[in-house]
């Protein structure tokens, strides 16, 4: 089936459109959204298998040949990320059945989630730089809806800032594409890569460095790297837990994926300035994120700052650009999407039970909710990379790559950061779950057991992903191979090159 790789984009798109017409029938919406999410997961699993056996899949839309039309490319990196996205969306949809109020569900919540999935899956799959911009906008448009849906004061206030930051970064994206188009005269990413390496043979002109930095600013704003993360803690604080989980798990990772894609495909020949810049920014991101994570006494804020730490660690692996570190980055990227979603859902349950996310007002939860406590404990261990859970292998490979290419400082900071991340997350555990139990108003009405389904699934995946890393490794290393050798990607897209 040649059209196979477009299905993870098409299924949520059709579902999203259909759900608009069923907006007031909550049960119907839940069923349709759940079923389509399950279907997407099944399709993406078979897509991963297909890529594993038959190599990179490409689809030229409307049969326009590769450099001229829009091409969808599904290599191992994007297939795996599409799979992870589908799983996370499924988990968040299941959680939303109980975890979000009916008013929001009636106001096109499930449609917006599905459109968000269209944008994210599309951004992972597309092989055309302008099409990437379009899918970014699809994703951002639905994220604007999701962040403001419900219309509480804090949501309205924070969504204005979120919207403004993203509008500016979109304009910068258009500008960067314009410059790139004037230099290479093409939009197909494989073709751009081929043209850029032709140009680089005659010596790297300054304009390519300018374009690279512009792309770094654009994707860095989305992915929240060091000087550009300022909007994230405020904006992500506002929406309810399942939306927060979707944002924390997916949106920043699209930015990180785009940096990985453009920097391994376009700007890999310039070993000097660009790579150094990325390394420095990645390490600074880790440091700032860790400081934020240990400074706050609010559960949501602590986990939000942990997003920034993870982005830094992944980007460090990408900037080092050895095969080992790239493998580690992809491993860690998938791990992090999964574990962040589960952590945010768990934090959402804690906030629902206690009615606050301030750590000073919470204690002794594990006495009344042992299941919640232990799931949180496993998720926390996985997050900070305790073997044999899922964070460990990725971080090990990133650090190994860092030491091999003599980035001792960076690798050391990644290593140190795990310890501090563990500290920050254990602070939640010690203060929130241990101690004397308190009585919380209205806690009995919260259906904790049924809300636990989604995070338990995600944590189980995290455990499997770590313990069964022998089984997962071939897929990841195939993905890293495409990133390390852009010629594989170029040959798969432009057949004659």
């Amino acid at each position, binding site marked *: 089936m040649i059209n196979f790789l477009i299905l993870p984009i098409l299924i949520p798109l059709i579902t999203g459109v259909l759900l608009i017409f069923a907006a007031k029938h909550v049960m119907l919406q839940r069923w349709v959204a759940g079923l389509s999410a399950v279907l997407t997961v099944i399709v993406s699993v078979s897509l991963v298998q297909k890529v594993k056996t038959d190599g990179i899949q490409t689809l030229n839309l409307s049969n326009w040949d590769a450099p001229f039309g829009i091409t969808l490319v599904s290599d191992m990196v994007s297939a795996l990320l599409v799979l992870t996205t589908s799983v996370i969306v499924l988990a968040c949809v299941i959680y939303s059945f109980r975890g979000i109020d009916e008013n929001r569900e009636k106001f096109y919540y499930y449609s917006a989630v599905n459109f968000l999935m269209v944008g994210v899956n599309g951004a992972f799959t597309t092989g055309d730089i*302008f099409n990437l*911009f*379009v899918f970014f*906008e699809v994703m951002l*448009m639905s994220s*604007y809806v999701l962040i*403001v849906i419900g*219309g509480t*004061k*804090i949501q*309205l*206030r*924070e*969504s*204005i*800032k979120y*919207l*403004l930051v993203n*509008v*500016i970064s*979109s*304009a*910068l994206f*258009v*500008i960067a*594409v*314009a*410059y790139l*188009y*004037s230099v290479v005269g093409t*939009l197909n990413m494989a073709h751009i890569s081929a043209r850029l390496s032709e140009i680089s043979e005659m010596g790297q002109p300054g304009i390519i460095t300018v374009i690279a930095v512009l792309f770094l600013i654009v994707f860095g704003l989305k992915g929240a790297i060091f000087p550009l993360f300022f909007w994230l803690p*405020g904006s992500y*604080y506002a929406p309810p837990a399942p939306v927060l989980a979707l944002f924390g798990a997916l949106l920043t990772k699209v930015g990180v994926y785009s940096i990985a894609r453009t920097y391994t495909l376009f700007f890999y020949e310039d070993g000097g300035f660009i790579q150094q810049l990325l390394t420095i920014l990645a390490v600074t991101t880790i440091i700032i994120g860790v400081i934020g994570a240990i400074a*706050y*006494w*609010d559960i*949501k*804020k602590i986990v939000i700052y942990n997003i920034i730490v993870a982005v830094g660690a992944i980007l460090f692996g990408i900037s080092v650009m050895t095969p080992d570190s790239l493998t580690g980055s992809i491993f860690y990227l998938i791990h992090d999407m999964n574990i962040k979603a589960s952590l945010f859902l768990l934090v959402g349950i804690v906030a629902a039970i206690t009615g606050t*996310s*301030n750590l000073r007002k919470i204690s002794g939860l594990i006495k009344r909710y042992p299941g919640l406590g232990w799931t949180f404990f496993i998720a926390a261990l996985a997050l900070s990379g305790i073997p044999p859970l899922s964070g460990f292998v990725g971080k090990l490979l990133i650090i190994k790559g860092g030491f091999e290419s003599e980035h001792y400082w960076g690798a050391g900071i990644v290593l140190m950061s795990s310890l501090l991340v563990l500290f920050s997350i254990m602070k939640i555990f010690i203060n929130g779950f241990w101690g004397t139990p308190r009585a919380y108003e209205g806690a009995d009405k919260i259906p904790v057991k049924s809300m636990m389904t989604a995070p338990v699934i995600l944590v189980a995946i995290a455990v499997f992903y770590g313990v069964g890393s022998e089984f997962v490794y071939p897929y990841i290393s195939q993905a890293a191979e495409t990133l390390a050798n852009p010629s594989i990607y170029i040959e798969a897209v432009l057949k004659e090159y």
Partner: protein
Amino acid sequence: MEILMSVVVGILFMSATYLMLSKSLLRIIVGTAILSHGAHLLILTMGGLKKGAAPLLGESGPYTDPLPQALILTAIVIAFGVTAFFLVLAYRAYQELGTDNMDKLRGTEGND
């Protein structure tokens, strides 16, 4: 011609930046609209300005690159959509929060 266009784009970016740095929400929205217009003109300029030819490859004679127009069309539609959303959001926020001054829209939840 390209030089003139570049100057126009520069002026648009300049005014957009000025407007976006102000406190009033409405001026900020106008600023983002102008910023996206500048970006669209930049695509057109960067694609190379040509006139008097059809966008048909294969015929003898010169041809024009149709791609920048296609890109701008897409980008304009997106910018319109976002601006419309932004205006509605600003109005709703004004109703709910009672101010359109960005200085008064600061928040410190969870920052203790």
